[in-house]
């Protein structure tokens, strides 16, 4: 492989977490028509940002989180910017606390994600009420929180497969700031 191709390959690998997050956010707006679940979909974007911020923060910088949040805002129909704002605030919390998550068992990471997701729901709820200047029933948000927590193990597993694929592609002689301590499978 010559230098240019290798650099392109490296770029594609580096962009993988961002692109995976974009696609997951798009998935969040797909119709889930099996009734009784209702129109609420899990917040897959939050899971993706959480995962990459903990295990590959070098590939999920703050500057990537803003477009992800705006993407979520544009895909959805709510007020523009609220998802971006929430995602950035939550990102800050994860980033500055991430040493706590590293190398922990899956159950602890799951539990910690629960706290983060609850915090994200609270921030988003307050932001929506501040925007509309009226009380909004938080029930759908609580439902989304539960749903997000429920799909977390599966998505964690999928993302860890992607992370391993990224790590494999990072060949020796191709310098990259990496995170040697990979996640433990669920």
């Amino acid at each position, binding site marked *: 492989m010559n230098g240019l191709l290798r650099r392109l390959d490296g770029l594609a690998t580096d962009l993988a977490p961002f692109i995976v997050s974009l696609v997951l956010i798009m998935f969040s707006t797909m119709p889930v028509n099996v009734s009784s679940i209702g*129109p609420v979909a899990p917040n897959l974007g939050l899971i993706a940002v959480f995962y990459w911020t903990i295990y590959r923060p070098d590939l999920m910088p703050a500057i990537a989180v803003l477009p992800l949040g705006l993407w979520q805002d544009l895909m959805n129909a709510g007020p*523009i910017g609220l998802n971006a704002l929430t995602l950035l605030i939550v990102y800050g919390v994860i980033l500055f606390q991430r040493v706590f998550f590293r190398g922990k068992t899956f159950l602890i990471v799951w539990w910690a994600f629960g706290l983060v997701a609850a915090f994200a729901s609270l921030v988003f709820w307050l932001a929506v009420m501040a925007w509309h200047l009226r009380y909004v029933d938080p029930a759908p948000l609580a439902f989304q929180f539960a749903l997000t927590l429920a799909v977390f193990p599966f998505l964690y597993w999928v993302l860890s497969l992607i992370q391993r694929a990224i790590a494999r592609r990072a060949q020796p002689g191709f310098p990259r700031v990496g995170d040697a301590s990979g996640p433990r499978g669920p």
Partner: protein
Amino acid sequence: MKYRPASIIRLAVPSGTLSQRIVLTTLILAAFGIVVLGKAETVLFERLRAGVVDFVAPVMNVMARPAATVADAIEGINELGRLREENAKLRAQNERLLHWQAAGLKLSGENDRLRALLRFAPEAEADIVTARVVGDSGGVFVRSIVVVAGARDGVAKGQAAMTGDGLVGRVVSVGGRSARVLLITDLNSRIPVVFEESRERAILAGDNTAAPKLSFLRHGARVNTGDRIVTSGHGGVLPAGLPIGIVSNVAGEEIHVRPFAALDRLEFVRVIAHREATVGSLGGAPPGGMKR
């Protein structure tokens, strides 16, 4: 950027560097700025959003099919068990409907004669566009759907979206090949309605629950559970007489309406083109056939 390795002592201690904090704070302020800008400058963002949805709609369309297939399969298995019962019910209903058909034909004929007598300006047939629903849940606090039919299919802002059962919502933004429909249950949905029997007017206001509320009802108006609600056509946005739902719950001032359309599992909707009236308030689309 080099990250310092984790150690047990640094447990739960903020680990960001100063530059990371500055970048993050700047970005949070930028996001806040976008929120403020979005509140003031809705047109620009609405256009941007329509463009984005337009761009991803084909992808979503492809992905929606397997999801719909799985849902259909589950539904199919459920239905198999109820087949006999369903059949008996349908026979009974069929008999009832035949009776109504006879009554309807008689009334229709009578109506035609009376209209001729009065020289009543008839409502023209509407243009109808059938569209597949490819995305719903516009967010936790938004009730909206994305359909694959846009400006080039004749869909325009303000048009009504229906299922065979009743009104679903109205089109709020349109791209070239996709459009977003705000459901009647959404927080921002306000539909002028009228009681089919008593002709009392009201506004149907969504509150993000499955059963939107009636407001601005005349004080002392008689309301009963089971009353049918239809669009009134006031404001000229929606055509008059589209079925919406029935009053499901009356608790003092709080009147809730249960929509006829199954808003939680929409697969296809019909968008009804309704151009501004030319004949007083009776308007309708100019005579035209049905589009696909």
